[in-house]
């Protein structure tokens, strides 16, 4: 992910990298963009913008390294630097606020909910999606990267430009918040949340 240009690719190599290593991730990129913005047009703009930047800076991509992580990092930065600046309604909680509010990586891991695995398994895709979408963008982002896209902590650290310890603690908090939401649904739906079956 270094910005140093190693060497210049020929036009043919550029095409091969773009088609072979970048374009196959368009699905994941679009879904990431959509889950960040909740808007089809904004998601399309973010993805287009990301691919144009990827092409423009293709010489700083090292062939054989993780293209998907490289592209996700560009999309995330475009979202923060450009999309959010021009968006009229800033998101309620932004990265800075979250960092100051939860300024420690030192999380105490404990059971925070009576939610049961069985009720989670019975939930519908829409309920899961809604719960995820209701989280503040930083928390939503780590869950998308880890659980939906399968990135490792190390890859996430690079994509988000944060230390691995922060990835781990943010992910833990994000899942706890998600559990609270899911527990709310479980109670509304009358799922069994606090007793053995």
């Amino acid at each position: 992910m270094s910005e140093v240009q190693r060497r210049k690719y020929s036009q043919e190599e550029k095409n091969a990298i773009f088609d072979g290593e970048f374009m196959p991730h368009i699905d994941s990129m679009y879904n990431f963009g959509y889950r960040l913005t909740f808007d089809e047009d904004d998601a399309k703009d973010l993805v287009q913008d990301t691919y144009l930047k990827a092409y423009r800076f293709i010489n700083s991509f090292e062939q054989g390294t993780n293209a998907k992580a490289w592209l996700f990092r560009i999309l995330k930065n475009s979202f923060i630097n450009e999309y959010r600046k021009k968006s009229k309604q800033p998101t309620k909680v932004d990265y800075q606020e979250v960092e100051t509010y939860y300024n420690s990586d030192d999380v105490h891991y404990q059971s925070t909910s009576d939610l049961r695995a069985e009720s989670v398994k019975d939930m519908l895709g829409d309920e899961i999606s809604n719960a995820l979408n209701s989280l503040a963008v930083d928390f939503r982002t780590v869950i998308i990267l880890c659980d939906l896209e399968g990135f490792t902590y190390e890859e996430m650290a690079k994509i988000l430009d944060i230390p691995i310890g922060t990835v781990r603690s943010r992910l833990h908090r994000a899942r706890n918040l998600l559990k609270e939401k899911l527990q709310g649904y479980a109670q509304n739906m009358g799922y069994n949340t606090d007793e053995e079956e």
Partner: protein
Amino acid sequence: MNENPSGERKMQCSDESKCFELLESILDGELQDSGKEVLKEKLAKCQPCFEHYHLEQAIRDVLKTKCTKHAVPNELADKIRQQIQDIK
């Protein structure tokens, strides 16, 4: 996974914070082989760890398998290729 009914497990975890952090890292694929033995042991002996593991696993499973995906608009890939052509 369920072969050991809760009968033999202790009901209090001796260090929930450490154990849960470890379980969550294992579920995220961050500890490969070294984690497996520890995991077996915890799940067999500790009820809170057992329950936490299964809840966390269920959450990851539903996120992975059920979260609604959005189809990429057909014209998007073509539009991108066209724009790249234009700047070449």
